[in-house]
C-alpha cells in the first residue's frame, strides 16, 4: 500500500510560499523590502534563489510533513509516543542537490497565524528529501494492506529524529531514523532501517534514563 502523504493546512502552505522569498538569496524580497545590513563570519552554504527552486516548472512547496515533538520529560514520566505534540509543518522546496531547502511553518503569536520561522539550506535538505522519497520502498509497506500516513517525529533532548509512519489503530506505527545508518548519532538507532513503536520507545526510554541526569546548564 503506498504511503499516504497528507496535505498541509492551506494557511500553512500559504505562509510558506509567502515568506519563503525573504529567506532566500534575493534580490527580490517581496515582503521583506531590501536588506539593511547583513553579516556572516563565514562563507555560508549557497542560498538558492526562487528560480533555483522552481526550475522545470516545479511547484514551490512540496512533500509537506507534520512535525511532532516528544519531550524527554514525557518519556521519563512513562508516557508513550502518543504524547508527541504537533508543532507545525515542514515543507521542501527544490529538488536538485544543494538547491533544496526545508522551511518550518508554525502557528505563532500574537494571533496564531502560520508563519515561516526557519529555513534550512545547504547540503542536508537534499539528503533528507531523498530519504523521504525512498520511504515508499520500505519493506513493511510492500504486499501489505496496512495504511500508513507520513509524519515527522523529533525528540530534541536526545537528538533523535525519525520519519513516523502512522498506522492508527490498525497496526504498529513504524519509525525510520533520520539520518540513517552510519550518519545516525545514536548507535541504538543505527542498526536497523525501521523500528516499530515499542522498539523505538524502549530505546528512547533507555537513552532518556541516561541523558536526564544532566539538567541545565548541560547541553548535548
Amino acid at each position, binding site marked *: 500500500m503506498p504511503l499516504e502523504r497528507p496535505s498541509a493546512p492551506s494557511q500553512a502552505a500559504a505562509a510558506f510560499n509567502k515568506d519563503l522569498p525573504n529567506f532566500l538569496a534575493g534580490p527580490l524580497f517581496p515582503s521583506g523590502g531590501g536588506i539593511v545590513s547583513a553579516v556572516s563570519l563565514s562563507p555560508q552554504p549557497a542560498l538558492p534563489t526562487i528560480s533555483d527552486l522552481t526550475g522545470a516548472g516545479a511547484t514551490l512547496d512540496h512533500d509537506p510533513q507534520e512535525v511532532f515533538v516528544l519531550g524527554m520529560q514525557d518519556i521519563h514520566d512513562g508516557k508513550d509516543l502518543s504524547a508527541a505534540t504537533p508543532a507545525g509543518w515542514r515543507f521542501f522546496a527544490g529538488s536538485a542537490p544543494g538547491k533544496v531547502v526545508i522551511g518550518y511553518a508554525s502557528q505563532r503569536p500574537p494571533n496564531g497565524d502560520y508563519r515561516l520561522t526557519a529555513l534550512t539550506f545547504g547540503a542536508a535538505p537534499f539528503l533528507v528529501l531523498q530519504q523521504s522519497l525512498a520511504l515508499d520502498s520500505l519493506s513493511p509497506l510492500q504486499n501489505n494492506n496496512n495504511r500508513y500516513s507520513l509524519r515527522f517525529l523529533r525528540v*530534541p533532548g536526545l537528538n533523535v529524529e525519525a520519519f513516523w509512519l502512522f498506522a492508527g489503530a490498525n497496526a504498529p506505527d513504524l519509525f525510520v531514523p533520520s539520518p540513517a545508518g552510519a550518519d545516525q548519532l545514536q548507535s541504538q538507532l543505527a542498526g536497523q532501517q525501521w523500528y516499530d513503536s515499542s522498539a523505538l520507545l524502549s530505546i528512547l526510554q533507555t537513552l532518556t534514563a541516561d541523558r536526564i541526569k544532566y539538567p*541545565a*546548564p*548541560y547541553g548535548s
Partner: protein
Amino acid sequence: MAIEIRVSRGTDGVTLSILNGTSGGAIGPEPAVVVGPIVIDQSGTDPATGPANGGGGPGTNPPPGPGGGPGINPPPGPGGGGPGINPPPGPGGGGPGTNPPPGPGGSAFGSGLVVIGPIVITGAGGGAAPNFIPSTFPLKHQEMAYWCWVAVTEAVKEYFSPSTKLTQCEVATAVLTATKQIGANTNCCTDSAACNVPATLQDALGVTHNLHCAIRGPLTWEDIKTQLGGTPRKPICVRIEWDDHAGGHFIAIYGYREFTSGIRQVLVADPLFPEGTAAYVLYEDILNFYDQFGYWSDTFLVTP
C-alpha cells in the same frame, strides 16, 4: 593613532572622555596605550562639590587583560600526563579588565589640582591582538550524540586560532578531564563511548580560554549586531533549553540579516547539521521557538 582626552566638569563632577583623536569616535582595537598622569589645575575657579575624600580618575582605566593562556593542558595522570594540547599563547591583549584603584596623587575636588592617571587604554573590542585576523567560522557536525559542546568549542578555538587544529576528541578529553567527568587516564580519541556525555559550554570554553562571559538569557538584536559586526567579529554561542526542561543543546550564531520591513534573521550553525548546512531563523523565534521546542536560555560571549 591620535588620542583625544576631553575633560568636562558638570554639576555632578568631572567627566573624562577618551576618544579617537582622528575621528572623534570610540577607541578602536590598538595595542595598550598608557597616558598620564594628567594634572588639571583648578586654581582660580570655584571649588567643585566633589567627594570630600577625593579619589583618582573616574575610572576609565581597564588594565590589560590576561595574555594568551597556556593552552589546554590536561592535568598529568599517574603515568605522566595526557596528550597535552598546547596551542601557542596568544600574543597579548585580552578581555576588558576592571577599574583599577584611583591613580597616584588623586586629590579632593576643590583643592585646585586634579590628578588623573596613569590611564591605560586597551582596545574597545576586548583586547584583540594587533595581528588577529579571524578565519571563517568552521562549525562541524558533532561526532558523538552528546557532543554539541565539543563541536562549538572546537569551532570557536579554530576561528580565533586558525593554526590550532584540534580534533573533537582532543577537546573532549581536555574538557572532561578538567571537569573530572572522566578519569585522568581516559582518552576520548580511543574511548569515545566513555566520553559521550553532555557538558557545559562555560566549562568547555573556559578550558580553551575562549570564554569572555556567560549571560543568563538571550541577547538583544542590537547586541547581536555588536558582537557579529564588531572588531573582532565574534560568533555568539547559545544554549537552547528544551521546553520540557529536560535537556539542552548548544548552537552558534554566526551571521544575521536585517530587512527594511523589520524582518530580522539570525544565521545559525547547529552542530547537529551535516557539514555544509546552515539555517536562517527569525530572531523572534530563536528566542522561544527554536526547532519548535526550544528557547534561548543562556549566552556565551567569546574572546580570542
